[in-house]
């Protein structure tokens, strides 16, 4: 399933993507590139189209125009699960966990793609299924260790504190072993302490696992701090794409944010 992205070509390429709902344009002619192992951010005022963009990339929405390439392969038009199999994982702005399952099961679901046992193996609990299941559990164990989730292993996720739930969602995404991880407002609703932990985790993921990470518009201070590159969306259009220091001073960006309020680095976007 997994293709090798030989060389230094871009991992993800969004080309001239537009998305319309009825007459309303959510995205207009968006271009975007993510390189392997990169940590970048997509920010913008509320309703700028970050989530729509993520939804297009992960196959939940179908772009009205334009193409999306992942590892050199065109992925728009594929179903979300096929795209996940190619190596894109994500979290959601409003947590989308399997609320009746335990932490363990949520993470195990992330391993779904890696199960090499079929329906009948499962139904009759064959040795093949058993071997597979144990292998997946071992992998999940590693992720739980890394994210410090062992203490809530058997808790139903609905009963976990908010920040913890966000973390479980990240864990589930990581369990799929993606090459690209999209985090949609991961720190929203977190305490400062949890945010600091999150920055740590994101860096770990990016540096140790070598996964490219795209942060969806979030706490601006955090974004400026950790991103290697920032893309700014405004009303569905890309208005800036550069390193944080340049973006911060871009008058178009300031103006876009001024639409609501003066650019305040402490404020969530």
């Amino acid at each position, binding site marked *: 399933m997994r293709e090798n992205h030989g060389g230094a070509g871009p991992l993800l390429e969004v080309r001239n993507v537009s998305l319309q709902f009825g007459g309303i344009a959510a995205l207009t002619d968006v271009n975007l590139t993510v390189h392997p192992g990169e940590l970048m951010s997509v920010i913008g005022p509320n309703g700028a189209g970050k989530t729509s963009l993520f939804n297009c990339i*992960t*196959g*939940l929405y179908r772009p009205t125009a334009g193409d999306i390439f992942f590892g050199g392969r065109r992925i728009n038009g594929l*179903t*979300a*699960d096929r*795209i*996940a*199999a190619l190596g894109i*994982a*994500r979290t*959601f702005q409003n947590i*989308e*966990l*399997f*609320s*009746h*399952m335990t932490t363990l*099961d949520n993470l*195990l*679901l*992330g*391993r*779904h*793609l890696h*199960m090499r*046992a079929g*329906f009948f193996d*499962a*139904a*009759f*609990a064959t040795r093949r*299924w*058993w071997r597979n*299941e*144990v292998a*997946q*559990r*071992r992998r999940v*164990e590693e992720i739980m260790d890394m994210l410090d989730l062992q203490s809530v292993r058997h808790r139903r996720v609905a009963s976990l504190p908010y920040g913890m739930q966000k973390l479980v969602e990240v864990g*589930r*995404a990581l369990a*799929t072993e993606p090459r690209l991880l999209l985090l949609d407002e991961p720190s929203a609703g977190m305490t400062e302490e949890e945010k600091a932990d999150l920055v740590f985790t994101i860096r770990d993921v990016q540096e140790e696992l070598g996964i490219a990470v795209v942060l969806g518009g979030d706490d601006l201070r955090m974004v400026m701090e950790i991103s290697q590159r920032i893309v700014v969306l405004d009303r569905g259009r890309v208005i800036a794409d550069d390193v944080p220091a340049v973006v911060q001073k871009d008058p178009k960006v300031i103006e876009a944010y001024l639409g609501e309020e003066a650019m305040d680095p402490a404020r969530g976007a």
Partner: protein
Amino acid sequence: MTQLIQRYEEEMALVRGGAAWTGLVLLLGALAALPWLLPGYYVYILNFVGINVIVAIGLNLLVGYTGQISLGHVGFVAIGAYAATHFIRATEASGVVAALGGPFWMAVFIGGAAAAVFGVLVGLPAIRLEGPYLTIVTLGFGLAVQQILINWPAVSGGRIGMFVPQPALGSFVLGSDRSLYYLVWTVVIGMSLVAFNLTRSHVGRAFIAIRDSDIAAEVTGVNLKYYKTLAFAVSAFYAGAAGALLAYVMQYLEPTMFNLYESIYYLAMVVVGGLGTIPGAMFGAVLLTLLQYGLSHAQEYLPVIYGGIVILVMALEPMGLYGRWLKIKLWMKTWPM
């Protein structure tokens, strides 16, 4: 590392700990002894209990686990019953399979498989439809199956009905209540085991994931089309197998047996017992079937009692009987000695 693996396997095991094993053995022993302790017509009721347990477990996989509603499950039961009956009649006539030790267990499989095919057909539109819209498609399916059976005597025997030959193991006829009881409950145990296996595996996880958040399931790599259709197929298989057993136990089939009320009763069993748990489905099927058959003396009050219980359970115990049982267990555990 080996220790770790043992811990996983311990976690994955269906029956954990000595007490659970003892309980299970006692339960199976009681099940095996029951037909020798009860008069025949009670054994007949228990056969229906077993049949409804199978339907309820299967329906629960669809409704409780995958979150897809079916108001036409009786259609699958009917398809299973008629497919099995035709199979039994054909093999009996040809004598081929009978020589292999009797087609009775194969009939159960054929009934299930035939229903599963229709399960896929009904499941396909389910991919696009939500909630009440899916409800009406399944409802329409159930009504259509009955209507077609009524008007297609070649398949159903029409309203005269169709008599079902008794199951035979070689030349040994298994027509008595007791032998049917063992047949039915062996299938119940086997199919419960499969259901338990499925629900603790990646398949079961995918089902629950679709129910809890289909979007998240999809972006995590669950093929919605496949698993939604699979849930329908598996659920229909259970219903079809139960239909085959129904044919054996009733030894007579007639299209009016497969009406909308039955579909609602099946759903009530699942909900009253507890959605999304296999023991819950079993509880519900046992309780409501016993009520239905046991309260013949209550005469015309039965619908009021039955409906009242359903409302009572929904109002007091939305998690169903099994949820209540878990709470009682917890309460007893924490009882200060």
